[in-house]
């Protein structure tokens, strides 16, 4: 029987899943992903998560609870930093420790540290440490690592071509050709925020679908090339040292400056530390671009569907009216 490794469908799953999945399956390990976020799953998470947690951490606790009895190993890498000179968020650094403190009878935890802050090239070392748990042969681990990198770069380049992440991820998973989405709308809306808010359709109440139904084409930070992000982020007088935050700020500044969008929506989760500052920075820049409409939404576990729909409709109406007035 193959060893089962569980990956929670939360936090950086949306970005790194193809990499991890390819690595594990090349080593002959079965990967099990927790189910999609549901009300029940979130409720289970709330039982274990500390009260003051941000929404994303609460959701992640729910996913861990979902995997508990199904797997032999739980893969919760300690993501300190994935780029030179940056961090992810302090909560990511302590996440495995919090899980260990909150749950009893956990499956074996793989909490290898990924710290590429000083030396961005040594991604292989932590991956080797993960591989060693299952396989002794250096070559097979190295092979799996190389294959994983290849898959990841394919995945990222597909995202950069302007495809939305959920579609790309499911087509990657099912090894199917990507069905190009062709929304009918003529509006272009940038949706910025942390990936675990943008793509978890329960958490954000399916906002991408709702926007597309209202006749908008959605652009996310993943579609902006890293070079442009770096260029914009370097202009900020102080370095934004959260790599996700840097990406969000860089991408939204680029999109605002490029004037290719009609509106921008920032999605933040309740209690998120980085979001509280990112909102301020983005809103300040958006104020300087009066022709681009800007909306900031905060998500929490009580978010009512009707509230979001009303605000989105009003937002789209506003943009449509502006257009009419212009022409």
């Amino acid at each position, binding site marked *: 029987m193959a060893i089962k490794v569980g990956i929670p469908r939360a936090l950086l799953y949306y970005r790194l899943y193809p990499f991890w999945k390819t690595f594990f399956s090349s080593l002959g390990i079965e990967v099990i992903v927790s189910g999609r976020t549901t009300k029940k799953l979130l409720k289970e998470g709330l039982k274990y998560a500390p009260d003051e947690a941000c929404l994303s951490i609460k959701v992640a606790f729910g996913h861990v609870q979902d995997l508990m009895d199904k797997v032999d190993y739980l893969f919760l890498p300690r993501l300190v930093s994935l780029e030179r000179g940056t*961090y992810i968020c*302090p909560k990511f*650094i*302590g996440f495995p420790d919090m899980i260990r403190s909150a749950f009893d009878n956990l499956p074996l935890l793989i909490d290898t*540290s990924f710290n590429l802050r000083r030396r961005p090239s040594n991604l292989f070392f932590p991956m080797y440490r993960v591989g060693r748990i299952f396989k002794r042969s250096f070559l097979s681990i190295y092979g799996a690592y190389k294959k994983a990198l290849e898959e990841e770069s394919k995945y990222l380049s597909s995202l950069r071509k302007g495809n939305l992440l959920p579609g790309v991820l499911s087509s990657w998973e099912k090894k199917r050709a990507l069905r190009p989405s062709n929304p009918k709308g003529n509006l272009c809306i940038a949706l910025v925020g942390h990936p675990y808010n943008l793509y978890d359709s329960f958490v954000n109440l399916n906002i991408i679908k709702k926007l597309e139904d209202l006749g908008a084409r959605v652009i996310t930070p993943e579609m902006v090339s890293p070079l442009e992000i770096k260029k914009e982020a370097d202009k900020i007088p102080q370095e934004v040292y*959260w790599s996700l935050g840097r990406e969000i700020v860089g991408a939204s500044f680029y999109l605002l400056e490029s004037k290719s969008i009609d509106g921008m929506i920032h999605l933040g989760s309740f209690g*998120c*530390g980085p979001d509280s500052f990112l909102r301020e920075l983005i809103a300040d820049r958006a104020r300087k671009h009066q022709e681009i409409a800007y909306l900031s939404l905060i998500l929490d576990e009580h978010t009512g569907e009707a509230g979001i729909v009303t605000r989105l409709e009003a937002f789209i109406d506003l943009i449509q009216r502006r257009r009419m007035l212009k022409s």
Partner: protein
Amino acid sequence: MKATFPHVGRMDIFIKGMTKALGMEAVVPPTNSKKALNLGVKYAPEFVCLPFKLMLGNLIEALEKGADTIILVSDRGPCRLGLYGLPLQIILKNLGYKFNWVTLDSPQAIKSSFQLGMIKGVEKYRDKLTFMDGLLAFHFGWKKMLATEEIERLSLKIRPYEINKGDTTKVFYQGMRAIEEAENLYDLKKAKNKAIRNLKNISQDRSRKPLKVAIAGEIFVVLDSFANLDIEKKLGELGCEVDRTIWFSTHILHHLGLDKFMRKSKRKAIQAARPYLKYHVGAECNATVGYAILYAKEGYDGFIHLMPFTCMPEFVAGGVLTRVSKDYDIPIFTVELEEHSSQTHLMTRLEAFVELLKRRRNQRSNQ
């Protein structure tokens, strides 16, 4: 140049002492108050932590008083503190203030800001002052702060024994004011000794057996008695001998790497937390967990964990502390502080907590 800085605990005593010795001018914002907090809350982002809001309030008040240069001592992640500069500048500029901004977050920044003439005002003094003057001024400021901390530490020890409630607090503030006003080292020593004598002369009931409680958590709220709603005084008057884990001086010494031989240093706390936190999360997170373990081993009755609402590193510590509390059998009380925290609310919770500690102690002595 009129420089200003936001308050962090009693850092103003240090800076005032230093600038006084140098004959320079610094605009010290009024001490943290409801007014500063309201100003901060009005203009700050919604979910930002309490220290940010208070600092913003301080800076607005200082700019109103005529300051033109803001100096912010900061760090480089992963906590939000390192990025305070960006939103603060944006908010203050949008409010229409004009100022020079200096962030001191690394030795390089300090050097380059000196070179860029940030401390332009210093040039005026440069010919008159020597390096030795600077060193002496630093020494004077440092001594002043140490003296304040010493009498504060003593007041924490004496408060649970006082017969007339409030005596200790009154005497402590008198002593602190005298220390603040001291002009030279001789005055300072006299003021300190007098304060210590006065504190020891407070009428006390030595037959009491106070509960022992330790306080740890995020540095700003632990140091600032306005932000933590005077929790030490409240605990003392409820009959607890409080030990505070973080002082401004120990924090500086830790960052200079000089706390190797100190008892219960932050370094030792971080080591003690290793079984629970395998990685250094940043800020005071590991130290908080470590202190809980150290104090539990020492036989303390309770542990209080202070954190601002939405603080990221302390949130991780809070998650881990639930397990520490079980493993070491020590009650841990986490207080989240935000702009809506009220005195009475905290008092009720503290009374309940102290009651719980008393009951535990009685049960133990009966066994």
